[in-house]
């Protein structure tokens, strides 16, 4: 119980640091820490398959991609474009209004007060694998086509234009 609130506090702190840090490299490092706390949340929810996938895909693949692109670009604190303070204050007020609206609407929900876990084993690899390869077989195969097309598109976009280089 106390562990959940501790990890939630860490999650909120790290995600605030992600958007308020000036240096983009530090932002990526804080984002990695945020995703690690998300992994802890998944373990606490007994969703072990998602914890492992989150650890490998987000912290392994996506964050390495972000770091690579950032280091290719040679950005630092001096070249970092910032908006004016007025726009920042307006943005924070708008975000705060969104949060107040969401939380206020959650207060109206009374059926969500349940705190029981019927089947604690649904998040295990064995159980999710059975569901994934029986009920969700077609979406699983279609997602492989999505990944293939994304790979082709990324290579095509990032490739240097031959006509410019001669």
């Amino acid at each position, binding site marked *: 119980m106390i*562990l*959940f609130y501790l990890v*939630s506090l860490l*999650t*909120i702190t790290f*995600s605030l640091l*992600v*958007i308020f840090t000036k240096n*983009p490299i530090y*932002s*990526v490092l804080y*984002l990695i820490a*945020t*995703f690690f706390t*998300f992994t802890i949340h*998944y*373990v*606490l*929810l*007994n*969703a072990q*398959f*998602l914890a492992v*996938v989150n650890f490998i*895909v*987000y912290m392994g*693949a*996506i964050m390495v*991609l*972000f770091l690579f*692109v950032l280091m*290719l*670009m040679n*950005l630092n604190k001096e070249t970092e474009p*910032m908006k004016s303070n007025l726009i*920042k204050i307006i*943005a924070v007020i*708008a*975000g*705060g209004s969104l*949060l107040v609206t*969401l939380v206020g609407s959650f207060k109206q929900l009374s059926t*969500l*007060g349940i*705190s*029981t876990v*019927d*089947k604690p084993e*649904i*998040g295990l690899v064995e159980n*999710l694998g059975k*569901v*994934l390869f029986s*009920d*969700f077989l077609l979406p699983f195969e279609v997602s492989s086509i*999505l*990944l293939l097309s*994304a790979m082709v598109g990324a290579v095509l*976009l*990032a490739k240097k234009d031959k006509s410019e280089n001669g």
Partner: protein
Amino acid sequence: MDNFVSTIQTVPLNHYLILSSIIFTIGVIGVLIRRNAIIIFMSVELMLNAVNLLLTAFSAYSGDAAGQVFVFFIMALAAAEVAVGLAIIVMVYRNTSSVDINILNRLKW
């Protein structure tokens, strides 16, 4: 294992709702206050993760495995999205030598 299960049994589902909304809001504010395209992209990732956590919490509390399968598909989609998006950002940087989104106003008239 029983330790973890007994842990989540005492946390109300409403607290997961509130945590996810806070992180989603932080993502929205990040999109609004920054001009660096990569930071905006990372804020979008934060929003995606908030939704993932909420879906997992709903799935665990209602005992339905379909929610966690959806989260798996969202993660595959996020990987594809990051690959294409970062390729676009690299292209923009190569053409303008900057990742400031205020430069990208040529579609405005």
